[in-house]
């Protein structure tokens, strides 16, 4: 039990000196969900067994199970400190070698180190890896140094010192600091966080609430699994600043590890006297409750999220009255995204000026993105606001898979717009993204290459949004169905010239009349592809061809009789027996039977199958 900030300081010092005196090695194994899916928990157990087998003392080596390191594609990951040796794609059979070679004999294991796909060079140490080099990991860095299940680890890296500092400040001063830092809501809207706090502070009501929206996908999951205490610290500071006594963390029920870690964090914070009655002798009381959500896309919308916490179906409501005035149970409510909350301790600790020195003119600080799709290195990245897309995709992401040509990147989740190659020098911040026709949204970045058809991609997102629409307001419910219908006609080869105008008109109507942000942003994929890839739509409609060879109704598979060696592989694999031909003689595809599944195209050893 820690009673006041002096005791907290002393405790943190104690842990730090212990750490400094430690001369042995630390094996930090990522136990984030992605690495666990690839077998990280099994490897952790094997390492513990192996250490026992060799009778290695705690002074020589210790094991640290951490949250997500970000480079999920290469999992399971391991960093051996203090040298920061980076091992990737570890298999259970590699474990004995790691202990005998690296830990006991200080030798690097060649097969486990990272091979840069771009330069073909092998890289031993983590800071040298291009994926990490250009990142600025203000929030994420600590993930590698702490066990999210232990509050001691968090306090050891200076955790909860921001809270101790904040509790000595006036609430108004805290809000001023947040305003000065220029922090904008990480949930996607980009509203100035400080203003939201101010509005909520100014409400005269005895009962106020704070809510943490941890319903998001990749990013929310990694923060809640990897560093739950930073979120809790941010929430306590926020609650103190606006005068709330109860907070909710809204987590998807499908993230059991996140729920477990949050629960543990809340319990241990209570034991330490950081949560509950009279926090650090300041006289301030605060409690946090976890509310599990069902995981619908719409539940990320603030009023739908509030409805879900109230025990209702996650359906948004009109927002003439903002949540800061009447939110949860009609009380003033401060709802922030999990990443926003995690930023708060940093701002309080280092000051607004330090925070504002990072980032672009109007968007401050760092931002976490999930970089996925057809790039070499996928995972979670944290970069300063205002970095260019080119740097993210080609430096951090290591360029396109198999050297294919870059076509587009979608930013902001399913309802984000697609940005073409000509805009690769776009700066990643709230305003530039909006200008380019996309949104910060969920900060997902999906990279598409030349093999992706933009019409088909737009159709895919509209289908997703159509399924996820809650059905409350007409434009979103009906408009998206119509839009999807038109896109289907275009990809089926039944497109007409006037369809393009119809899409524009529908998009305008849906964007302007929908009730919530899901509907308002839903036409983005169509609008942006119409803007940047209009020629592709026109080829679909006029020439009835799909340039990328994706839309089944518009393509044809033909075997080049000169290239075909008659290996019969395609005929064997064809699910409908559409391929005929003698052994060692050119084969033929019967277009009447062919279902265009593309298996022959994939299996042909000499690339004799052509897609037209």
């Amino acid at each position, binding site marked *: 039990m820690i009673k006041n900030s002096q005791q907290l300081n002393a405790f943190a010092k104690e842990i730090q000196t212990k750490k400094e005196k430690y001369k042995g090695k630390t094996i930090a194994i990522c136990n984030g969900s992605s690495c666990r899916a690839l077998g990280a928990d099994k490897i952790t157990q094997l390492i513990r067994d192996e250490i026992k087998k060799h009778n290695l003392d705690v002074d020589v080596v210790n094991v640290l199970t951490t949250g997500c390191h970000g480079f999920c594609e290469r999992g399971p990951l391991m960093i051996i400190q203090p040298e920061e040796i980076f091992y990737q794609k570890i298999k259970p059979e590699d474990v004995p070698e790691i202990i005998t070679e690296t830990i006991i004999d200080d030798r690097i294991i060649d097969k486990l180190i990272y091979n840069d796909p771009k330069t073909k060079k092998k890289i031993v140490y983590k800071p040298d890896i291009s994926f990490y080099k250009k990142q600025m990991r203000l929030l994420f860095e600590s993930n590698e140094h702490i066990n999210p299940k232990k509050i001691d680890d968090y306090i050891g890296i200076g955790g909860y010192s921001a809270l101790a500092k904040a509790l000595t400040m006036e609430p108004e001063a805290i809000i001023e600091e947040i305003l000065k830092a220029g922090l904008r809501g990480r949930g996607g809207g980009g509203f100035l966080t400080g203003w939201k706090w101010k509005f909520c502070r100014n409400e005269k009501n005895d009962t106020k609430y704070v809510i943490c929206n941890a319903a998001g996908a990749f990013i929310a999951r990694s923060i809640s699994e990897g560093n739950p205490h930073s979120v809790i610290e941010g929430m306590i500071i926020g609650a103190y600043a606006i005068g709330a006594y109860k907070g909710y963390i809204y987590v998807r029920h499908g993230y059991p590890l996140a729920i477990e870690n949050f629960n543990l964090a809340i319990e241990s914070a209570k034991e330490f006297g950081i949560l509950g009655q009279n926090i650090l002798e300041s006289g301030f009381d605060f409690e946090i409750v976890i509310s599990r959500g069902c*995981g619908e896309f719409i539940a990320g919308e603030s009023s739908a999220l509030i409805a879900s916490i109230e025990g209702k179906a996650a359906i948004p409501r009109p927002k003439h009255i903002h949540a800061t005035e009447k939110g949860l149970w009609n009380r003033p409510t401060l709802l922030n995204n999990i990443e926003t909350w995690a930023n708060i301790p940093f701002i309080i600790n280092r000051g607004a000026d330090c925070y504002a020195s990072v980032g672009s003119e109007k968007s401050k600080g760092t931002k976490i993105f999930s970089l996925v799709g057809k790039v070499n290195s996928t995972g979670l990245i944290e970069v300063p606001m205002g970095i260019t897309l080119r740097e993210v995709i080609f430096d951090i992401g290591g360029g396109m898979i198999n050297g294919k040509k870059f076509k587009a990147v979608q930013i902001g989740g399913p309802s984000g717009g697609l940005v073409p190659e000509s805009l690769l020098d776009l700066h990643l911040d709230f305003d530039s993204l909006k200008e380019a026709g996309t949104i910060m949204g969920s900060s997902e970045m999906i990279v598409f290459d030349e093999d992706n058809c933009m019409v088909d991609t737009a159709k895919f997102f509209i289908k997703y949004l159509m399924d996820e629409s809650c059905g409350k307001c007409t434009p979103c419910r009906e408009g998206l169905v119509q839009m999807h219908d038109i896109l289907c006609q275009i990809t089926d080869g039944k497109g007409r010239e006037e369809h393009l105008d119809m899409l524009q008109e529908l998009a305008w109507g849906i964007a302007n009349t929908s009730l919530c942000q899901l509907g308002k942003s839903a036409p983005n994929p169509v609008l942006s592809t119409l803007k940047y890839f209009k020629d592709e739509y026109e080829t679909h409609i006029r020439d009835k061809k799909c340039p990328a060879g994706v839309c089944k109704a518009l393509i044809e598979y033909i075997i080049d009789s000169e290239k075909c060696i008659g290996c019969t592989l395609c005929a064997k694999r064809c699910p409908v027996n559409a391929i005929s031909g003698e052994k060692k003689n050119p084969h033929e595809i019967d277009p009447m039977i062919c279902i265009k599944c593309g298996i022959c195209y994939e299996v042909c050893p000499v690339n004799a199958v052509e897609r037209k």
Partner: protein
Amino acid sequence: MSRIGVFICHCGHNISGAVDIDALKKKVAQIPDVTFVIDNPYLCSTPGQELVGDMIKEHQLDAVVTSHCSPTLHERTFRNVAANSGLNPYKLEVANIREQASWPHWHQPDLATKKAFIIICESVAKVKRNMALEETSVPITNRAMVIGGGVAGIQTALDIADGGHKVYLVEQDSTIGGKMIQLSETFPTLDCPQCIMTPKMTDVANHPNIELLSYSELDELEGYIGNFKAKVRRKARYINEEKCTGCNDCTQECPIYNQPMIRYAPKYSEFMDKEFIEKIEPCVTPYVGQSSALVQVLLDVNMKFNYLPQDAIKYVSEKLRVPLSKVYEVATFHNVFSLEPRGEHIVGVCVGTACCTKGALKVLEEIEKLLGIKSGETTQDYKYSLMEVNCLGCCALAPVVTIDDEYFHADPSDVNPLFDRYEGGSDQ
């Protein structure tokens, strides 16, 4: 013994183009009681109408079948003709051989002719039983009741009231305006709903012909057009309506504001199995009476049973004091809940964007093939249920498949290894 006349119209080419009129005439003449058959190129034209009138008189017909277009168009025309010729208009029937015979079977003349004959036969049979009816008038109550005070209800009430009739407008909520007044803009013209609605709402309040019954519900309705009896229950207001100025201060101060109103709590659990209650109790007991815990409780129950049995929904409704309809609203809105029993293992294929770009749909297709079921279905032995799930936040692993709570990276070309640990997959 009646004397029935049948008139067949060509409708220019519209009927005669598909129906063989001569053959039809011959067959119709053989129907018992048909004493007279004639065809005409345009029966609805003045000469055509005169022909019908003349023939009724000349042949002393006591029933007539006119075969032409839909009765919506010309039944009234020919009934007038019949009345003018001294025949009771209700002794005339229309056989619709254009919309029902010639047009739909335009390219199958034989079929069209055959069908036209059948339709005329039916009309002849009917007209034989028709009685001569007389029109009378009876007094009715010139008052209307409109149920629901949304935009449609308000407009209806105003229209009727402007026509000089008394209207009762019944609204279940404490104010009229409905959903539209809550919107910020309307589709597709972006008009402001408040600007449309508020004048209408005040018109309703001020209209001398409208009696507004807000916060009221219709309990009973009986009777028929012109003679309805309705019973409207006005809900308790707990205030003196004469004195209330509608300042709204009391709702702000009310200690139980926004608490659900439960009129009676049904006791579903009395009829349930002891075993069932023992199983469900631990999920519900910590939250008894807390309507806000609905989603949490349903998630737990769904996890325990792998689906939401009907009894479970009733039990939750009773214990949490949430109306059954509200429980169903939540249970059917979210797709994590299933109202159907599901298999032992729940296989989820992530169809988030990142997974789809890496072939998640192919994975889904392959698993569907392997298990022999479609997404959303359960194998017959209740071993596996397959469903599509939203982004699981493991995008770097894409494509991702979950089996129960475990995550796997799937290979689109071979999904078999996923099921190895569950005793080698299903029978296939």
